[in-house]
């Protein structure tokens, strides 16, 4: 018995199952026909692997020096760079939203997905959450954003929130969050 899905599929075709073979051909036609109407956007399987989005960090997401105060709280740096605080957290400046350059797929609906992370340092990890981003054209979203690629590189701005407990050990904390970009067409 074959356990590999792809091998099983080929095996079935080699056994001359006419219904399955017809279904396979029909599926191929459905994929080709709509694309023939868009000459500049050939289906991916006819023009090779799709172009892969490349991200370049222009500016990190920086929460700067901050103090937890008596009860702790949170600090949020928005995609526009605005800072908001909760609890007794005090910001001492030095905050920046992340700016990320994305190689553009012109005309493609580009979907950016952000994954929360954490920062490590001398004390317990700091949780990074509520990531938001804004793409070209001002489209904003929580956990990600969507925009249409323009000529040249696009810049995506990202903000987020760090929770700072009371009594957090002082020092430098660093970490990362992941950004993923997908295009709805091939380039």
């Amino acid at each position, binding site marked *: 018995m074959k356990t590999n899905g*792809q091998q099983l599929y080929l095996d079935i075709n080699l056994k001359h199952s006419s219904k399955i073979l017809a279904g396979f051909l029909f599926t191929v036609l459905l994929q080709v026909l709509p694309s023939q109407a868009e000459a500049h956007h050939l289906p*991916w*399987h006819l023009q090779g*692997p*799709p172009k*892969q*989005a*490349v*991200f370049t*960090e222009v500016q*990190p*997401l*920086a*929460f*700067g*020096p*901050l*103090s*937890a*105060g008596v009860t702790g709280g949170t*600090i949020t740096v928005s995609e526009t760079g605005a800072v908001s605080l909760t609890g007794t957290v*005090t910001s*001492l400046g*030095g905050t920046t939203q*992340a700016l*990320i350059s994305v190689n553009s797929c012109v005309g493609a609906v580009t979907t950016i997905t952000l*994954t929360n*992370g954490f*920062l490590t*340092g001398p*004390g317990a990890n*700091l949780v*990074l959450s509520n990531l938001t981003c804004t793409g070209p054209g001002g489209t904003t979203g929580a956990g990600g954003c969507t925009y249409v690629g323009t000529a040249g590189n696009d810049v995506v701005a*990202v903000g*987020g929130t*760090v929770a*700072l407990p009371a009594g*957090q*050990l*002082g*020092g*430098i*904390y*660093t*970490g*990362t*969050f*992941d*950004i*993923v*970009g*997908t*295009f709805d067409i091939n380039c």
Partner: protein
Amino acid sequence: MFVFLLACNASATPITTTAEVVTAITVTEQTPLNFGKFSVGAVGGVVTFDAGGTVSVSGDVVHLGSEVGGVARLDTSGFAGGTPVTVSVTGTTLISGGNSMAVVGNCLGPAGVLGADNGACTFSSNATTTDDVQIGGKLTVGASQPVGVYSGTLEVVAAY
């Protein structure tokens, strides 16, 4: 194969995130605010220590020069130099048995800027060592204030 190519269309890139947690400012009392020893008559008056250390009296209060007292001196330490620090003082009441006298406080930071009564003084923190803050005050002595040793606690709060 179809699934494999779709996966290639997505790329994950780690983006740097940073934060610097600074420790809370510590305030350490070096010397207390002491209004010294004085006498008072039927009028009463005020004993004033400005945060710079100058003492004065009003009314029929007479300070006994041998025990004039002095301003409180505090050390603050915390974040690196240049960080704005605010020290605020809240007044209190000195108690001796069932008698009391009201005190308002004021502070003088390293930059020499005197805060208002029961107000705050602001300065930039020192880069390499602690900052010296002086706390003065005004003690209101009632007419024929009962004799005794009066004590209390001024609350001083330092914040970034």
